[in-house]
């Protein structure tokens, strides 16, 4: 199963991981 997020955000939005990384529920994944 997969979760896909699609969202609008200002240009300076930054993801805080790399492809292949494992993430855990409620961990920060992006910020402005």
């Amino acid at each position: 199963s997969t979760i896909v997020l699609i969202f609008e955000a200002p240009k300076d939005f930054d993801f805080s991981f790399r492809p292949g990384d494992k993430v855990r529920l409620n961990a920060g994944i992006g910020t402005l």
Partner: protein
Amino acid sequence: VPKVSWMRRITKGFVNYGRNLKWVPIPLGVGFAYICYQQYGHIKKRERRRELSSNDIADRLATQWQINIYKALPLRFVSRLWGQVNSVDVPYGLRKPIYSLYTRLFNCDLSEALVEDLTTYQNLSAFFRRELKPTARPLDKSKSLVSPCDGKVLHFGKVERGWMEQVKGVTYTLQGFLGPKTANQQEGEVKQVSNDHFQSRLTTKAGNRLYQCILYLAPGDYHRFHSPADWTIKHRRHFPGLLFSVNPGIARWIRGLFSLNERVVLCGEWEHGFFSMTAVGATNVGSINIYFDEELRTNKKGKFKQGEYRDHDYTAITRDSAGIRVAKGDSIGEFNLG
């Protein structure tokens, strides 16, 4: 410096001066030409690498006849059967060995489960959707966006000109994935617009960009999903679809995999504009529950046309017509076996 030819000066420099080597001037033009030559080599190599990698992606993608064969497999039937088998209550004495085997096979961390006693789970489905202890996943309040689930990052980044990527280099359209925009349109009606135009109609604020993030949940992962932000869910769209596996290998093999599979798209708004979260089903995990949506029924027997969908408007059921407000970390739904 003695008045001799360039060649002799170099030769003399090394032969005659012996241990006292001296700098030999090289004309600026020669140095510049050498740097250009080196740079040209790098550019050629880089272009060649790029060409090879795009050819590699094309080579490893499934052909239409391979997809047709995969489609012909009774995966939906198998998925429902798998769900029924796993919903059968496991005899008390067998619960511990069966669930322990599952735990070892898929590296589940039982110490994080709200209920650690394996004998309390009546069947494998109940164990699969087990709850976590409230302290197991602390909420990162400092970030605008938190992970909605445990999983592996398949891809993330900007959505460009209405195209998304399921893994690096394998693209599919935003329009095909979300379906047509609902405004002034009847359910089931398909009004195609250009991909670029579709994307530009989604963004609501000037200067904003559209981003995507794809998270893959492995069999041993916690299979409930939570809200990744503070947002208002206004609309649900359910696409009955195929139930191909969604593991990263298949995502690299079948273009548009997530647009083919059964999925539930939740759309709404957050502080920066458009926001959506989609749960995509797979062969083993074909059913999707949304806790506040009792009408939703997924992985049901029956025929469907690829691309058809069923809409549900949440703004009609709330008192202030805004939709369903959820906060970062709130529980939204779960995947189930079968």
